[in-house]
């Protein structure tokens, strides 16, 4: 199976560990992944609220480039990119006036947009295209004895539920069980991590992140497993600030691709394990 | 001077489903294009393909056939026969130059008043864009051609007669 890959800005920056582990895991599974050429920033949530039409054109450019090169599915690991690209597809399909403007803009850049490419999430590809049974064959070092709290964040389930239930998604739960670990059951799977507010409005943002890490630890999770680079950053990167405001929690946050890679026996160095701010060493030492 | 062409569409609606749905559309005061004239039959299976051909031959620009959804026919299987006949008829009609939705088969249940409105509006729009079919006009033209040809042939033979007579 082959896929196109849209990294987005985060995966080349603070979310580097996500890119590393994603590429390593997919390679080890024999899934061919090719980075989209000349991709641009998707605009994330910010640009949509500044100028809607330009924002659709910006995101649409990536879709047009993808269509031009092949008819493969595009994998967008970052939740914001995933949502924005899907939202752009839908908006251009349902709004003919918007579509006309965007298509004209793209034409000026020598691009055409037909709306045929599919944008997928890597978790969706692993659980639905590959399947838990097939994955099991690759698991050589199951993470026995470890407890993970699956954290989905908001953008893969709201407003669209494309590959999982909106209130109680379970694809990552399945993955955690597939790697041999115990999945912690908790009701905050899709509760907001604070998003950009950890930076812009810390009294709100930090509190939201604090609630998540506190409850995960309270329920016995050794680490939180997530699928969004901003969620990972919020939960992992602000624990000092949270400690000074509320209390010290100390729980590492890993990407699902990282735990899958570990269970497949890939070396920690290829999975960016050391990039986490709160160290996962103690938790992973038990395996 | 040229008024916009308004298509004339003849419809055959089965009593139990589509006709009832059209009544429901009326009771609900839904508004739709006035181009359709409905002929009531008890079952869409009553519709002989000759009715469809006759409608086109007499000047219909479109023919709409409405029946119950497969599985729901009031007479158990009538609509299955309709489906078989009409699929074959469609191909025949295409060979005669009647296609692109001039003939349309729709399944509309008694509760789907809204669908009656959507189908009629959609079909009217599409047939209007296709323009008049005007088979009677074509028949007249062809008849006229034949008459002219006949006159031409007779003229020649009269000349021949005159020549021979002389």
């Amino acid at each position: 199976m082959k896929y196109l890959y849209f990294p987005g800005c985060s995966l080349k920056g603070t979310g580097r560990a996500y890119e590393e582990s994603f590429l390593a895991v997919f390679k080890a599974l024999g899934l061919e992944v090719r980075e989209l050429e000349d991709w641009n920033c998707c605009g994330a949530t910010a640009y949509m609220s500044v100028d809607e039409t330009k924002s659709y054109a910006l995101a649409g450019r990536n879709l047009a480039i993808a269509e031009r090169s092949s008819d493969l599915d595009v994998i967008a690991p970052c939740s914001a990119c995933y949502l924005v690209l899907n939202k752009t597809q839908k908006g251009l399909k349902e709004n003919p006036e918007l579509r006309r403007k965007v298509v004209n803009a793209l034409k000026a850049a020598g691009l055409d947009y037909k709306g045929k490419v599919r944008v997928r999430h890597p978790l969706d590809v692993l659980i639905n295209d590959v399947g838990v049974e097939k994955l099991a064959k690759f698991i050589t070092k199951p993470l026995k004895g470890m407890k993970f709290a699956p954290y989905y964040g908001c953008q893969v389930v709201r407003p669209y539920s494309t590959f999982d239930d909106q209130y109680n998604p379970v694809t990552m739960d399945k993955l955690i069980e597939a790697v041999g670990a115990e999945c912690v059951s908790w009701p905050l799977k899709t509760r907001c991590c604070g998003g950009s507010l950890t930076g812009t409005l810390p009294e709100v943002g930090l509190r939201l992140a604090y609630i998540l890490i506190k409850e995960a630890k309270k329920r016995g999770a050794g680490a939180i497993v997530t699928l969004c680079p901003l969620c990972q950053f919020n939960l992992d990167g602000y624990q000092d600030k949270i400690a000074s405001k509320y209390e010290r929690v100390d729980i590492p946050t890993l990407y699902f691709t990282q735990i899958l890679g570990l269970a497949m026996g890939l070396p920690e160095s290829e999975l960016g394990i050391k990039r986490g701010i709160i160290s996962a060493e103690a938790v992973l030492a038990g395996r | 001077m040229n008024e916009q062409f308004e298509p004339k569409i003849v419809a055959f609606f089965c009593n139990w489903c589509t006709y009832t749905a059209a009544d429901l559309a009326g009771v609900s005061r839904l508004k739709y294009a006035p181009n359709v004239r409905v002929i009531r039959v008890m079952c869409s299976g009553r519709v002989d393909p000759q009715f469809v051909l006759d409608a086109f031959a007499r000047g219909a620009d479109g023919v709409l056939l409405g029946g119950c959804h497969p599985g729901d026919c009031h007479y158990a299987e009538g609509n299955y026969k309709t489906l078989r006949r009409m699929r074959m008829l469609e191909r025949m009609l295409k060979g005669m130059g009647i296609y692109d939705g001039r003939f349309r088969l729709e399944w509309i249940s008694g509760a789907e008043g809204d669908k009656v409105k959507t189908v009629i509006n959609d079909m009217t729009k599409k047939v209007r864009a296709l323009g008049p079919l005007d088979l009677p006009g074509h028949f007249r033209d062809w008849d006229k051609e034949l008459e002219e040809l006949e006159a031409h042939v007779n003229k020649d033979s009269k000349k021949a007669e005159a020549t021979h007579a002389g």
Partner: protein
Amino acid sequence: MSENKPKQENLPRVGFYICHCGSNIASMIDVAEVQKYASGLPGVAVSRDYKYMCSDPGQEMIAKDIREHKLERLVVAACSPNLHEETFRKAAARGGLNPFYFQMVNIREHAAWVHEDKKSATEKAKDLARAAIARVRFHQALDKKRVPVDPNVLVVGGGIAGIHAALTLANAGKKVTLIEREATIGGHMAMFDKTFPTLDCAACILTPKMSAVKAHPNITLLTYSEVNKVEGYVGNYKVTVKRKPRYVKEDLCVGCMECIDACVFKEAKFPDKFNQGLGKRKPVYIDFPQATPKVVLLDPETCIELKTGKCKKSCAAACDRKAFDFNQKEEIKELQVGAIVLATGFKAFDAKRSPQYGYGRYPGVYTALEIERLVNASGPTSGEIVLRDGKHPKAVGIIHCVGSRDAKTNKWCSRVCCMYSLKLAHLIKEHSGAEVYNFYIDMRAPGKAYEEFYDKLLGEGVHFIRGRVDEVTDWAMTPDEEGKLVLRVEDTLAGFVRRIPVDMVVLSTGLEPQADAQEVRRRFNIGCGSEGFFQERHPKLAPVNTFTDGIYIAGACQAPRDIPDTVAQAGAAAAEALALIDAGFVELEPNTSHVVEEECCGCKSCVPLCPYSAITFDEVKKKAVINEVLCKGCGVCAAACPSGSIRQNLFEDDEIFSEIQGILK
């Protein structure tokens, strides 16, 4: 193409009438113009317009004109034939004209009510009028066939609707067969503790009716049975019923229940469906002590003897009536009835479809039916409000509209949930003293004494919060939420978001059609609305009739309904069935088909087409023959006949071709 223009002089005299229908038609169609236009058409002897053609003076006008002007055909342009075709046929008959020399033109539902341009609507009316006038010339004089009506009735469904309909019919002297899928009648009502607004004990008012059914000499009760096949037509239905084996002889068992005590399973082990899974039963069981008929049954899934053949069968040994029969087989019965009443009830919404409420994830979340069993003195906890872990709740939250008024699940209002939520609030408070919170969108209390019941609850200290609960969560935001289930809701009257910690959550689940409603309605050849409930003939004027004559519907199978309305509707359905039966005969629409023998070429194309096997082939004459009694008038054979020798009355080829020509001239 048939050239079907009768000569001018031989045209039958047509009377044309166009109705104003008050302003319903006249406001969008220029009726005077149509009347004038029609008067100029060939064969039209009389052309009139009138305000209300269906009224007595309107009909009298028709009859008078027929006599005075020697009319031979009648056309009325008005509303839908489904409303008044019969009316004008009768008017024609009163004037001395065969009623089938009449054709109706629909210019109200199909024109005046659906178009917005007067000019095009009027043109359409003229086209349709012209078509009808052309068609009606080809009509033949016909007679309605009378068939006798079998006086027996079948009632399907043994809930309160079926029970009431069966009793009413039986009291009127008719022989009724009441079929119920479960092992006992009683339906959902038998599960309730008290009913709103009177707080009558449900069992107390239901069980006398159940006993009356059992005892009534005119009622044959077939429980644990289902209808497999329905054939025939109004007045003459043949129904095939499948009876599932109880492995106990019904006429021998007296319901002493010694066998249950004697069962090799010392403890009840299996989830009990009647108690919504909250209680346990043994493989030999009875649904509840007042079950009717009071006969035990064996569950083939859990009974050791039925599964392996290796049980010591202490149940059979304990039975001094020798009622056990481990070899009992499924039984097929055939019934002949004239009318059928469908009262198959509803299914409760599956709360798992609204995952935000945590049903199935949190043990403290219950559905309303589960609570009905908990508060019931004859339920699994003898009426004690106790959670699955044995604790007693100090605070209970009741969430209204679960699976109702919801774009994601069901859009409709289920009508009874506000009232039963109030009832449950009262009962829970009474039995446990817990704090009770009701979360509602609107409080719907439309029935007699319903609003007063709500008022009473307001005074009992139940807390009412107007807002749709967003989620049920076990995440504790503050220490006093530890170990609780928290309901997060926007209190729209107070204007802010609240978190209410409770121990027990009750989901007021809505009413849906039964899971097999589509299958059942196809078996009986009736329709369903888009939500899946059985379709009534007319929502206001014929709520218990269906589009299939002789089949009536009553109760929640038609739409969500409370008990008073269900009983009223069941009575109405019984009355309609009685009207049919007591008339003694039914007149069949004569739109059947027949073969014109001389024209039949014996190709046999028609024979396999008839779904009612009404067409046979006479091997001697080598001609097709149609049985008019079996023929239902679909016309499929007429359409297929290559020689045109099959004529469908009222829908002959000539009639339809002339209608086509009339439209397009």
